[in-house]
């Protein structure tokens, strides 16, 4: 697989959330608004890219037996750093995401990529893989929160995390009486996610069917 294919794989074919069912806890819990989704997605992308690069850089001097603890320490240090930076510069987003920022440590995507990709490939490839996978994750969060925020509030809002100014606000006021607040609760999260998972299952199986036909 060349670099470009590898980069794109994270969006549909190997989409970490809908395809591989990784990192679900945060994907379901913080996908209530677009703001949270963007903040969380970029956070994970940043940490994933950095951890992939560091782990790839030290892959030759890491003893095989203790590689998992080493990975975890690298990831935990990065997450602690990002957490403190966010508390200082984006207090509102930090308050919204809450405990989920520190729980990025145990996000399966990051440890999974470290084990499956960064421990075997060069720094540049690992960085690209981190960005691709991270954006794939962000993309899935955006999809879920796009649906959930609209169904729950009949509008979309994006704010600047540094100074809390509203950048974009799209509201369809005539739909206001029909909004379904259930979608901001966990039931809505599970339902939205189930629909997307089914959709991605269809998308994923399509190329496989084509190949089968050609083979015949």
């Amino acid at each position, binding site marked *: 697989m060349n670099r470009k294919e590898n980069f794109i794989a994270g969006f549909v074919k190997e989409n970490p959330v809908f395809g591989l069912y990784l990192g679900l*806890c945060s994907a379901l819990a913080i996908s209530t608004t677009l703001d949270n989704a963007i903040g969380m997605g970029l956070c994970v992308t940043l940490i994933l890219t950095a951890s992939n690069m560091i782990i790839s850089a030290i892959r030759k001097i890491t003893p095989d037996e203790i590689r998992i603890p080493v990975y*975890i320490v690298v990831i*935990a240090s990065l997450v602690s750093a990002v957490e*403190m930076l966010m508390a200082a510069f984006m207090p509102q987003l930090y308050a919204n995401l809450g405990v989920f920022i*520190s729980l990025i*440590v145990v996000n399966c995507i990051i440890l999974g990529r470290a084990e499956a990709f960064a421990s075997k490939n060069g720094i540049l490839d690992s960085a690209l893989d981190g960005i691709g996978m991270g954006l794939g994750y962000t993309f899935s969060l955006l999809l879920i929160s796009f649906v959930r925020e609209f169904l729950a509030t009949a509008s979309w809002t994006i704010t600047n995390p540094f100074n809390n100014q509203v950048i974009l606000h799209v509201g369809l006021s005539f739909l206001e009486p029909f909004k379904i607040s259930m979608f901001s609760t*966990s*039931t809505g999260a*599970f339902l939205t996610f189930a*629909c997307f998972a089914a959709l991605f299952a269809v998308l994923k199986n399509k190329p496989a069917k084509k190949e089968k036909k050609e083979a015949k």
Partner: protein
Amino acid sequence: MAELFSMAIAAVLINNIILTKFFGMCPFLGVSKKTSSAVGMGVAVIFVIMGASIITYFLYHGVLVTLGIEYMQLITFILVIASFVQFTEMFIKKFSPALYKSLGIYLPLITTNCAVLYVAKDNITQNYGFVEMLVNSFSVPLGFLLVLYIFSCMRERLDTADTPNAWKGNPVALVAAALMALAFSGFAGLV
């Protein structure tokens, strides 16, 4: 006493860790295909959360606070949890090889079960005393076991049901989870 009891009820039913907080989704979808492995996983998680919470509680108040390095919390906690899971794995392997086999990959993955880290952190941020900490770290995974068990029973029935191809497996299970979350939201206001 009554306070502790209502705290436990709230943790098991009202603020259920899976259905309202979404922690531990990976084992929730991964090991819920069979009732027996779901129960095994639930019990293992209770054991790990209890053990890890007690160790991290003393480590935090005994070492980190005294030395004034609370910012090392995350790194310390995750290392304690990782080694404790390793220990549990060896324990189960020795005493119940069958359970060890059926849990498979998900046993080492308890390390990355957010529930464990969440409970350890929650005990610190809520400023719980020792007894409260014990009650919290028992009742939260008990809620996990309860929901995992109910969910695995539903999935065993779902397997035989006739579902459209795209919805087979996880998607239809997630719809079931959504309905379960709706049912559990009825518990709100119980305490």
